[in-house]
C-alpha cells in the first residue's frame, strides 16, 4: 500500500518530469483542488522516493541526473517507480471493483 501523497507525486511525474513546485501545482489540479501538498511533506516524500529509487533528480537543462547542490532540481520517475505506480493503480482498481460488486450505488430510484 502506497501513501496517498506518494501516489499523487508518482502519478504527477508519470506524465512529465517536473520540479517540486510543479508537482504540487499538478497534484492540486489533478485532485480538483482537493489535495495540497505542503512543502515539508513534499520534499520529505521526494527524498524518501529518491532513496527508494522510484524517482531520480535531473538537471533542468541537460535532462541528466544531477550532482549535489544544483540550484533547481527536476524529478523524473524511474522504471521501478512506474512499476510501483502501476501495481498500486491495479490494487486500487481491484478494490474499487470489489466494492462496486457489493455496494449497489444508490442512483436512480426504483420505478
Amino acid at each position: 500500500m502506497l501513501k496517498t501523497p506518494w501516489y499523487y507525486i508518482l502519478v504527477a511525474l508519470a506524465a512529465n518530469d517536473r520540479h517540486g513546485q510543479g508537482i504540487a501545482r499538478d497534484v492540486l489540479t489533478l485532485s480538483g483542488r482537493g489535495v495540497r501538498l505542503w512543502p515539508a511533506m513534499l520534499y520529505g516524500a521526494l527524498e524518501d522516493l529518491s532513496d527508494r529509487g522510484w524517482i531520480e533528480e535531473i538537471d533542468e537543462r541537460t535532462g541528466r541526473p544531477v550532482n549535489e547542490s544544483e540550484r533547481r532540481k527536476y524529478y523524473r520517475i524511474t522504471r521501478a517507480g512506474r512499476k510501483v505506480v502501476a501495481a498500486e493503480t491495479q490494487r486500487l482498481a481491484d478494490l474499487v471493483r470489489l466494492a462496486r460488486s457489493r455496494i449497489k450505488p444508490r442512483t436512480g430510484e426504483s420505478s
Partner: protein
Amino acid sequence: MNREGGRRLYRLLLSLAPRRIRHRHADEMEAMFLDALADAHGTRQTAAVWVAALLDLLRARLHDTVRRRPSIPGIPAERRAFMIGTDFRYTVRWLGRQKLSTSLVVGMLAVGMAANIVVFSLVNGLFLRPFPFRDPGRLVDVNERAPRWNLEVVGINYPDFHQWRQANHAFEGLAIYDAGSFNLADHRGADRIEGASVTYDFPAVLGITPILGRTFTPDEDRPKGPPVVVIGEALWKERFGGKADAIGRTLKLNGVVHTVIGVVPWTAEFPGKVRLWVPFAGDPNQTWQSYGYAGIGRLKPGISVSDAEKDLLRTQQPIWDARDKDHIVSPYARPLHEEFVRDYRSTASTLLTAVALLLFVACANVASVMLARALARRREMGIRLAVGASRLRLARQLFVENIVLATLGGIAGLVLGRWALRLLLASAGDQVPAWASFGLDGRIVAFSIALSAATAFLFGWAPALHAIRGNLRGAMSGRSAGTTGGPGGRRTLSILVAAEFALAALLLVCGGLLLRAYDRVQHVDPGFRMDHVLTFALALPEASYGDEDDKDNKKIMAFWDRLIQRLSATPGATSVGLVSCPPLTCHWGTFFDIEGRVPLAPGQANPVTLFRPASRGYFQTMGIRLKTGRFFEEADGRNENRVIIVNETFVKTFWPGVVDPVGRRIRGNGPKSPWMTVVGMVGDVKHYGLERPMRPGVYVPLVQTPNRTMSVVIRTAGDPAAFTSTARALVREMDPDLAMYRVQTMEEALRKSLSQRALYSWLLAVFAGMALVLALGGTYGVTSYLVSQRTRELGIRVALGARRRDIITTVMRGGLVVVAAGAALGVTASLGAARLLAEQLFGVPSYDARVLSIAIAILVATALVANWLPALRAARIDPMRSLRAE
C-alpha cells in the same frame, strides 16, 4: 502582512523542518509556500495556510525523528533532537558488557526497594486500603467514654443506643454488635465459633447484601425473638457444602437450635474473624444494663464525623437528664478505619522511616559505584565532548542509564518484596487483622514506580553532576590512570561513603535499642510461673446450665466443681484452677466502693479495677505470690462469708501507705451491695502484657460470683500442649455439646502478646544489618577504586622506599577517617532519633551503653574489613609493573 514579511517568517519557521530537507530544498519550499499563500484569499484562508504550513513542518520533524533514518554524512549523530532511543540502546549494550557491576547495582537497588515495598504493602493493607464495604469513608466507629472514670472506651449500653437510633439526624443507619464466641454442636462434635450478636440494621449499615436468603428483620431483633442465624460464606461451605438448601436448616448454638435464614459473603465477615451473626435482641426498656457493646454507624452523605458526634451528644441529653445527671458517660464517634489501625500507627511510621533510610543507603551506595564508573569513563566522556557532544547530551545519556538501572532495580525489588512479604505474613500469623489484605494494587504499583524514579534521582545526581562539570582538558590530559578522578570526584565519593556509614550507624543503634527493649520486656517478671501451664476456655450455655429458678447457679457450680475434681485426678495434671480471665486475655472491669480509700480529687479519674472470679486452686496453679494474708479457703464465698483478694497495685492506688490490707472492706458500686472482706494481698500479675502497667485487680471466690464462662488453667507435669487431648476427651465426656476454645499454653500466649514487638524489632534489626552490608560493600568498592586509581602513585612511593606498612597505613587512614566521620554523625543522630522511639523503647535510654558500644564495635569492624582488603592489595603493588602499566 505583506509578501516579504511572510517570506521572512516562513524562512524562520523553516528551521523547524528536518535538517536533511531544509538543507537542500529551503528555497523551493519557500517558493511553494508563497504559491499557497498567493492562492489564499481573505484573512481566514491566509491564517489557515499559515497553520497548515506550521503543522506540515512539525509533522515532518516528528516523522523524521520517529523513523530515525541513518544520518546524513557530515552531521554527527549527537546533534539529533530526540536521542532517547539511541541512549537506551547504548545503555543496554553498555550495561550488558559490565554484567558484574550492573547486577551488583541492580541487586543493591532491589534490596532497598524490596524493603520499602514490603513495608509500604503493610502500611497500604492496614491504613490506605479501604474496608471491603460500600462507601467505607462514611462508616464511623461509635462508642461511649467515661472520662471521669478514666475510661476512653466503656462500650455502649443498649438503651442509650436505642435512644440515639430514634433521635439522631446524622446517620443513615446506626447499629451495635457484640462479638463473642458460640458453642456450635452437631453430630460431629462441638466447636467454638466466633460470632456476633448484631442489631437488625447492622448489615444495612455496612452495606452487606446476603448471597443467599436474607438478613434479620426488626421483629427478629427483640427480646424472645425467634432463634435465627445468618452465617458467613466460610461456615456455609464448611457445614452445608455451599448448597442453596442451607436456608431453613438448623445449627445448635449454645444449646439452642437456630434456623439459618441467610448467608453473607466472606467480605462481610466483620468484626474480625466472625463467622455467624445472631440478633442482638436488646430490650430498650430495661434501663440498668451493662455497657460494653461496640457501635457502628453510616453517616448521611455530606455529614462530617464531628457533626455526627455533636448530634449524638444532643440525643444523649434526655438520658443525662433521666439517669446520668453527672454526665459520666458520653457518646463519641470517629472514623471506623482509625479505630482499627490505632495499634499499628507508631510501628508503621517507625518501619517506614527505617526502610526509607535503608533505601538512602542503597542509593548512596549505587551513587558511589556509578560515580566511580563515571570517573573511570572520564576519557570516554572527554572524547565525546571533544568531538562535539554537548554536556547536556552526556548528562542525558547518564540519566537514561539511571532510569534503566532504577527500573530494573524496581522490577527486581517488586518481585523480591512481594516474596518477602508473603514470607513475613506467613510468619506473622494471627497478628494480622482479618480485614486487611495485602494484594498487589494500584497504589503499590504507583509507589514502586515513584520509588524507582526517586531512586534514580537519588543516586543519579552525583555522576551526572560530575559529567556536566567535567573539565575537557583535564579529562583528556588525565590520560594516564596515575591520578584519582580529581579532587571533586574524590570528595563526592567520600561524602557518599560517610553518608552511608552515618545512616547505617543510625539504623544499627535504633535497631539495637529496639532489640534491647524487646529483651528487657521479655525479662519482665510476669508475676506468675509461665512454664507447664495449659489454659483453655469453656462457656456453659444458658440453655442447659441457666434455669431461671436456679438462683444460686447450682448447676454451674456443680459442673465446675466436677471438672476441677476430674481434671485434678487425671495423671499428668499436678494442679487445676479456674479463673474468668487468665493473664493476657480478656478484661472484666468494675468499680468498687472502697472503705477508707483516699478520696478522689475533683475531676480526678476513678481507676477501673480488674475483677476476676477464681477457684481456690487458681493461685497455686499459676504460682501467684501471696504478699500477706491467705488465699481462698473452702468456706470462703459461702453463707454470706464474702471475701476478696486484692493485688499490690490495688492497695497502692486506693490505700496508699497501707502495708497489710487484710480485714478492710470493699463492696460493689451501689449502696445495696454487700461488703466483702479482704483476706489477702497477692503480687501483681502482668495481665495486660509484659510491657503494660498493671491496673488495680481483685479476685473473688468462684462460688461468690458463679460465672458461666471460665478459663481452665492446668499445671502439667510434662509438656502442657500434649495434655490438650486428654483434657478435650474429658470435657467431651462430661458434656459433648461443650467446646474448648482459646486453647493455648501460657508460654504461647506470652509469645503471641509480644509478637508484634518481636516482629518490628527484628525487622528493624534486619534492616540495620542490610544497611551495614550495603555500607560494607559500598566502602569496599570505593576504596578499591581509589586504590586502583592511585596505582602509579603508590608504585612510586614503593619505588622510593615506602614499606608495605606505610602503604597500608596510607590507604587505611584515608578510608577510616571518612568512615569514622560518618559513623560519629550517625551515632549522634541516633541519640536524637531514639527519643522519637521512646514510646517503643520500654524505658531503655537512648544512650544505652551496651547497645552503643556494640554498635560502634560493629561499625569499626565493618570499616576495617572494608578498607583492609584494598589496602592489602595496594601493599602488594609491584613498583615496576605499576609504573609501566600506562
